[in-house]
């Protein structure tokens, strides 16, 4: 696939922060990656990492927010100039700092095992930025 052709590809989805939307957003990402010629394993790994970030929004992001807050989840994905995939999963809630509970806390661990880079920006809602090499 010609790098020049695919660099304009972009996926961006925003929907209510409810558990039933996580799978469809993941499916959209999988179709997007399939169209960009990603192999099966990196495709599965990337959607797994994105799925964890999305699930965290549903589980935690709006736990401490007022009822009137617009509760959304958002995913954007695009290739950068180096051919790496950048995925940002964001919400308008507030990041919950807490000590790790036993038998929990696997989400971020899984993302770290898969993504080449992970940064979490909590200045305005939570933005989980992940960069993936094409290989995985």
């Amino acid at each position, binding site marked *: 696939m010609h790098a020049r052709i695919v660099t304009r590809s972009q996926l961006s989805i925003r929907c209510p922060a409810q*558990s039933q939307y996580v799978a469809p957003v993941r499916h959209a990402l999988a179709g997007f990656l399939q169209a960009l010629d990603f192999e099966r394993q990196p495709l599965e790994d990337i959607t797994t990492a994105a799925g964890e970030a999305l699930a965290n929004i549903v589980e935690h992001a709006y736990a401490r927010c007022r009822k009137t807050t617009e509760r959304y989840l958002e995913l954007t994905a695009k290739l950068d100039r180096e051919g790496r995939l950048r995925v940002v999963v964001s919400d308008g809630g507030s990041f919950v700092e807490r000590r790790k509970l036993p*038998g929990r806390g696997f989400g971020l661990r899984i993302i770290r*095992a898969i993504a080449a880079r992970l940064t979490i920006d909590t200045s305005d809602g939570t933005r989980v930025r992940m960069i993936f090499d094409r290989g995985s």
Partner: protein
Amino acid sequence: MKKKEGIKIIRLGGELEIGRKDEIRDSLASSDDAAAVLLDLGEVTYADSIALTELLRFCADSARNQRPVALVIKTPQFARLVQYAGLATAFKIFGESSPALEYLTECTRES
């Protein structure tokens, strides 16, 4: 007290993910009458950490009740998820049903 008997087989397939959390929990509830449990997850096409948490809880409950549990995992995404989560040794995992059944039969014979 009723004697526990036989190996119970619980089969879950498709996408084990946050949208099916309650269903997963319900499927794993109440195996009190079984001597051992085989969790046949061979047909799972996708799993996430929410599913792992439910599985861990189930295995911890079972351990407290001296009820051995074996997992059958066949799909690569699920197998890698367990690795990424650092849980490879937290579960007794098999790639096929028959060795899992043999293992559980062995376990229940010993006790």
